[in-house]
């Protein structure tokens, strides 16, 4: 009885911990940025939405070309726009109208571009359906598979029974 309790205690405690974790996570709030860093944080959030168009394909602030003719002026434009009092969304809209949709690091989730977002999960879902049907079919085949019979099977069964009997003794 004692060993049984010990065996299942961790399972119950694990559920308790998971619940506590969920509560902690649900209460999680992002740390408030200090006033001195507010401008910089806003700049980082906006630049993270864009990708450099010099050919490197890296995020705007991560272009590896040190004298990049695209990322450096665009970052300056973003700083200037934020300094002029525009909201982050307004700056993003302004940059998209200025440089085109290609400058966004991820396609907007609307129209045809919605396909980019949903297709991986549609693929995963389709895969799940296929795997489920495959498993069901295989399981059915497993049930229908004839159990071994004949003299050889009987001989092995006798050996197994004999060994179990000896073990028991």
């Amino acid at each position: 009885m004692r060993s049984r309790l010990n065996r299942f205690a961790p399972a119950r405690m694990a559920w308790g911990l998971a619940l506590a974790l969920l509560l902690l996570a649900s209460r999680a709030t992002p740390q408030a940025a200090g006033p001195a860093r507010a401008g910089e944080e806003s700049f980082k959030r906006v630049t993270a939405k864009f990708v450099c168009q010099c050919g490197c394909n890296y995020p705007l602030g991560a272009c590896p070309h040190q004298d990049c003719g695209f990322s450096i002026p665009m970052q300056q434009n973003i700083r200037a726009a934020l300094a002029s009092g525009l909201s982050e969304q307004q700056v993003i809209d302004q940059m998209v109208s200025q440089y085109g949709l290609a400058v966004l690091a991820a396609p907007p989730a609307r129209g045809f571009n919605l396909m980019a977002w949903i297709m991986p999960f549609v693929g995963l879902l389709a895969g799940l359906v296929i795997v489920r049907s495959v498993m069901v079919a295989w399981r059915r085949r497993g049930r229908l598979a004839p159990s071994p019979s004949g003299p050889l099977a009987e001989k092995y069964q006798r050996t197994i029974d004999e060994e179990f009997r000896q073990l028991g003794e």
Partner: protein
Amino acid sequence: MEQIGSFALLLALALGIYSVVVSVLGARREKPLLQESGERAAIAVCLLITVAVACLVSLLLRDQFQVAAVSAHSNRALPLFYKFAALWSGQEGSLLFWSWLLSVYSLLVVVIYRRRQEASLAGLMPYVIAVLMATQVFFLLLNNLAANPFSIWADMSAGVPRLFLPADGSGLNPLLQYPLMVIHPPILYLGYIGFVVPFAFGMAALITRQKGERWIYTTRRWTMVSWGFLTCGVLLGARWAYVVLGWGGYWGWDPVENASLMPWLTGTAYLHSVMMQEKKGMMKVWNMVLVMGTYFLCIFGTFLTRSGVVSSVHAFAQSPIGPYFATYITLGVAFSAVVLVTRLDYLKSENQLDSFLSRESSFLFNNLILLAACFAVLWGTLFPVLSEAVQGVKITVGAPYFNKVNIPIGLFLLFLTGVGPLLAWRKTSLESLKRNFAWPIFIGGVATVVLAILGVRKLAPLVTLFLSVFVTATLMAEFYRGARVIRQKSQLGWVGSLVHLTRRNTRRYGGYIIHFGMVLIFIGIAGSAFNEEKQVEMAVGSAMEIGGFKLVCANIEQIDNANYAAGRAVIELYQEGKLVDRLYPERRFYKASRQTTTEVAIRPRPAQDLYVVFAGMADNGRDIVLQVFANPLVNWVWMGGFVVVLGTLTALLPNKAAEAIRAQAAEQARGERATRAESKHAIQA
């Protein structure tokens, strides 16, 4: 020298075509001499491409700038070390290098298997050679027609072509002048190209309708080695991006990075599902699809890097080789599909499942998740091309997309890494599942709550860390249980028991070590959620703080040598008022290529990297702009890479149990031979 190289490539192409033709003819007409001729032609192809590579290396080392590939990627002031690496830094040289590595793989296959008398292999070999040589012919066509590495400059000013000899070369791309770049491409190529071998054996088995799993056993090590090289190549590429590109990260979901990840994902799926075929004769069609998919994704990755279809910091210049690749991939996929479909009857397998809760089910889910990740990466990589074709609007699919789509998929995969080993083949009872799961979940939960109390409140890193601890606990439990049994039966200590256990089933325990390496990599990736970054203008003597350190700009120095001129900042690092280190970030100007780069200064520690970039000069012309990153846990990614390599090497070691069985079989065969000889002798007497 360039004429010798050119001629060698042309002859290699002719012999490659000859090898394909005579190998197939030899197999169809059952002419051993033709088959042998095909094998010898494959050896000759390797020798000829080796001559071509030696010629190009010689031209690079001797600054023969009349050759376009030399002048475009080297210069007189380039250190010898990098002149050698210039071989694979350009389009033409790297394709030649590809060809050469493939020919070496083919040579190894011929040398290892030509003397084997096993009927099953003897029947396969001509087709294996034909498939290897068909791939070789494709690359030799590129080497000869589309990207000849021995093209020379011609001066057309006088109306007739005259040899033009530039005074110096344009130099090697500064981003490539880094020691890791000398080993990263060869290792990545060894991974890409290595998958040609299992593909060749798989196709040969299909074409000949060979029964059984012989080709799977034969190619197991080739697959493991290729997968190991590909893993190393991908991680070395990430390390190069981290240390050289200076943006503080190591994976930007760039199309070329994605191109190397996709065959890795399908190759990993294949390594898992192939166990189902070996152990239970299941998933034969699926394994064929995976081995074909991995091969074509390797070719596709090479195509993406070189065709100019997508833009990338890693990509080679646009060139006319795109249509060649597109044609080869289309024809190859069509041919493989036809061969597969026409032989589906031979691939019929005994697919049956005893229970939904079994190792077999976990492998199915593992394959599903790996393939879903591969599809997500492929879809995101190609969506801009699709969007432009459909909407006429160019869009970008970058890191935010890939992170959002792949994080849940990756976490589910990590979960399966922990669950898989706990499930038994055929059937797992709920009782044993509870017993095996309880402690790992409990330990994972405790670790996560502790982290949450310590202030980690972001959900994705918390889930990653929970799963990482859970998987580690399951793996440790597996090692512990096995070692305990051995320890009870023998006089060995814990370490001895663990070594003995691992040697008994190197594949299984090597696999667990690889899983642990992946856990470390996941922890490293989770750490990136807590990266800090600051960009500041600093005068000599000024200071800034980040990641618990105070950084003081102590000096700004100038460096000048034949290859580059540089500005170097001396940054003193203080922790709790004490000087703990000095860092030297540089900003270089390479004279030959006239390009500016940064040399990142990194203080690597397991808990946190301090990553300092000399971003440029401030507007006042005196102060410097420093970009500083505090990257927690990033080193766990590289440590995980080492562990994965260790696990791969372990899995490649021969099993003690298998060795004993082989020795027993050999002894039995010797005994049977001796008995037969005795009987024969007695009859004759």
